[in-house]
């Protein structure tokens, strides 16, 4: 294994771990899900590095793609119901989502 390859691996792993922490610490659900999709795509890169192209394809399509779409749908559903404003609000600011969605006193 080359030195640069090693460095690339460490960088990739560092980013994955950082993303994992960010996803779980993120208060805004929408942002957490977007970060999770990024995490899935980086995992696909890791699978390529580990000579597992089958898994890379599956991860990109299923792990990041389908799971990501389902998560976005769920987060949207939760905002859509709790928000005091109409449901067709653009998906930019999600802070209201989490406040309403998580805010059990």
């Amino acid at each position: 294994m080359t030195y640069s390859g090693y460095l690339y691996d460490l960088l990739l792993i560092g980013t994955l771990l950082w993303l994992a922490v960010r996803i779980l610490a993120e208060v805004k659900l929408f942002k957490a899900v977007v970060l999770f999709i990024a995490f899935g795509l980086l995992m696909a890169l890791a699978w390529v590095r580990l000579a597992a192209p089958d898994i890379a394809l599956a991860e990109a399509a299923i792990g990041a793609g389908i799971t990501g779409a389902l998560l976005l749908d769920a987060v949207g559903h939760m905002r859509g119901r709790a928000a005091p404003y109409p449901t067709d609000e653009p998906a930019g600011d999600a802070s209201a989502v989490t406040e309403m969605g998580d805010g059990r006193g």
Partner: protein
Amino acid sequence: MSQTDVYTLAGAALFVISLYGLITRPHLIHKILALNIMSGGVFLVFVGIARRVMTPDPDPLPHAMVLTGIVVTVSSTAYALALAKRIYSETGAAVLDAPDVFERPEAGGD
């Protein structure tokens, strides 16, 4: 430290980080995210182990198991999310301890 070690250790780290997140974060979406990251960690351990053989490709068995695992994970995630959405519709929140859930008199299931 070999490349295998680096990735299997990363898998273990992802497992531990998301276990902490699963326990401490109350929102169901966070819990489901944590479980997904956790399985990702386990898959890394599997594929790290597969790397021990390179003749010229890695051991196909862990790869097959991970592919199976990914499909199983997306299936249970889909169901868990549907459940979370329904809970949100019924209770107005996607958390496990909605108040007085188990004390209500009509709580008998049937």
